[in-house]
Each structure stands twice: as C-alpha cells, then as structure tokens.
C-alpha cells in the first residue's frame, strides 16, 4: 500500500512546490551561547535605527527557491533582520529604543541557492554602522555564508532552502557579535 500511494503524494508535492508556491521563512533563533558570552561584557544600551532596504521590491527582499518565492514573516527580509537584532539585544539586556547609540544596517546580499543537485548555499552581506547622536563611529561590512545538504528532488531541496534562512541570519549575527572590533566599539 505504502509503495502505491507514495508516488502520488510525491507527484502532488512536486506540483505544489515547483513553480507557484509561496513559502514563509521560519522564525529566527539565535546562538544562545554567543549571546550568553556577549552579555557578560559591559556594553552600552543600543537602539536600532534603520535596516535597509525597506522597499519590498528591492533585490535583497526577494529570494526564490527553484521558482517558489520565500517570503519573510515580517514583510521584508530587512524587517526580519531588524526584529532579530532587537530580539537579541533584548535577550542580552542591551536594548533601549531611546538610546542615542544606535545600530543601522543595509543588506547588500541576501540569497539562498538550491539550484545544485546535492548542495545548497546561503549568502548574506550587510554593511553595519554604529552612530552616536548622529555621528558614525564604527562601520564595517559583514558576510556570512552557509552550505547545506540539498537534493535533486524539489520536494526536498525547496523546504531545505526554506529552513536554512534562520541559520543564515544566525551565522551573520554570530559573526558580528564575536567580532572583537564590534565588541570593543559597543563597550561602555
């Protein structure tokens, strides 16, 4: 029985997923060990300024997985990153929406590629700025890349790409939080 209805299920899944489906990226989940390390540092309270691009039609806010759109649950991937930053700073006790020391970020690259037959990859690049009362005192680009096992079959490769997005954002933010230059810049 299993043998006979499996192909039907797979065929329907392939049809569903191969061209017109709209998927939503899962919720961001941080590297808590990294946050626990950073929260021991005596850091200034920080606010989040703007995370660009806010335009939903900008390239950085579009990801396609073999023809299926991957959407952000927050509307745009810029908002996804902004919410992740606020969530992490709140978790560490560093967030203050009224602080004059603020983080601004611009997403330069943002993509998950599942076109390969056996391997998928993710890339995210942001330009991060720290300002105090409007003056920039730290600016640096950060790039994170991820690789994951993928598949010839779209019914496996597309959901693999979907669940990779929070891992990509985690990798990027982990890179920022463990950068000695960034940590030095936000110290009190």
């Amino acid at each position, binding site marked *: 029985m299993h043998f006979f*209805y499996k192909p039907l299920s*797979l065929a329907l*899944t392939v049809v*569903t997923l191969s061209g017109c489906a709209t998927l939503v990226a*899962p919720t961001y989940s941080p590297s808590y060990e990294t946050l626990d390390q950073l929260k021991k540092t005596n850091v200034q309270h920080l606010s989040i300024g703007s995370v660009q691009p806010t335009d939903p039609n900008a390239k950085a806010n579009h990801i396609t997985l073999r023809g299926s759109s991957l959407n952000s649950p927050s509307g745009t991937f810029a908002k996804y990153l902004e919410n992740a930053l606020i969530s992490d700073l709140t978790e560490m006790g560093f967030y203050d929406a009224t602080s004059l020391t603020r983080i601004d970020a611009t997403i330069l690259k943002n993509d998950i590629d599942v076109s390969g037959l056996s391997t998928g990859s993710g890339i995210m690049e942001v330009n991060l700025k720290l300002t105090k009362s409007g003056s920039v005192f730290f600016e640096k680009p950060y790039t994170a890349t991820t690789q994951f096992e993928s598949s010839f079959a779209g019914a496996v490769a597309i959901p693999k790409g979907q669940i990779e997005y929070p891992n990509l954002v985690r990798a990027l933010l982990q890179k920022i939080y463990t950068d000695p230059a960034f940590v030095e810049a936000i110290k009190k």
Partner: protein
Amino acid sequence: MITFTRSIQKAFFTPSILIAYLVLSACAHPINIAPLDTPLRNESSLIKKSVAYVITDEDRNKLVTTDGGGGDKVSYYPYRELEKSIRDSLRSIYQNVTSLRSTSDIKAIQDNNVTLIFSPELSTSSVSNSMLTWPPTQFFINLSCNVTDNEGKVITQLRVSGNGSAEFSEFKSDFGLAGRRASSDLATKLQQEMLKHSALQ
C-alpha cells in the same frame, strides 16, 4: 494499437515512478519546529535566581525523522529548534538564564552563580491523516527534565507534553506548522509546570 500504447506507457511510466520512489524514499522532507510564540517575560515579577539549562552540542546536532503524510517522513532538529521554547519558559520565571554544554561545567556554573540546573530530554512523534500531502497534521513533543542544584542533587523532575495540529490550508506555506504549534504549547505548559513546584521558586 491499444496494446502498443499501453506498452509505451508502461515502458516510461513504471521506471519513472520507480526512480521517483527511489530518489525520494532515501531522504525525509525537512521541516522547522521552532515555536510561534513563547511565554512573555515580565521584569517586575521575576524570581531573583540564576538558573541554567543543559543542551550539549551532540543534542543540538541530533537530526530526528518521524512520520509525515502519504507514507513520507519528515526530519528536524528538536533540541536546536526547541531551545527557544525551553529558554523563554525559564526566562519568563527567572532573572538570569544561561545555557550550559554540560552539568559538569563547574566554571560556567560558578561564574554565573547558577543555583538550579535544568537538563531537558525530548522525544517527538508526528502523524498525518492525509494520504496526499507529506507535512504532518499532528505533532507531539514529550519533555522530561531533571532539575538539580549546583552540586548535582536532584530537586525534582518535570514532565510536560506539547501538542499541535495544522490543516493543509494552513501549512502550505509553513510545512512544520503542526510542530511549531506543539513547540509553543510545550513552552506554555513548561512555564505552568515550573510555577507549580515550590522547590523551584
């Protein structure tokens, strides 16, 4: 002519079904079961204790495969994806919450003045009532959690179950939705269970 057509159909259709079966039966469909919501933290009503939870790297990298629909399987990382449920439940009750890689990490326990250590063990299962789609329609999580003091003495053991369900119209853009609802349910029930134990206050 009919016989010829049937022969052609059989020649192409049967191998393609077989190839699709062989390709796709070798791997499970990946889903994410991170919670949708977790208990909120109210800074004014927190217990002024520093607690820790233990999730090893081996646990974080443990890939689990359970049943989906249509005879297919789904795979996910329960410890990695449920860490937020566990941590946020603890953070809704205690002032300071830290992650530990092991109960024997004496330095981290001392550095963080940890008084209670939670060691969660997770088991999961899933089912689908659909023969035509693979995402699970029902998801179950069982959490068993030993709580010890900073010298290893057992204080209590918590047992909590989280359940979630989702229909096709809901999960077509979020294949792990039943699992994510179960994770949210688990977080709420874990918070309630901890508040019942006077030894944990």
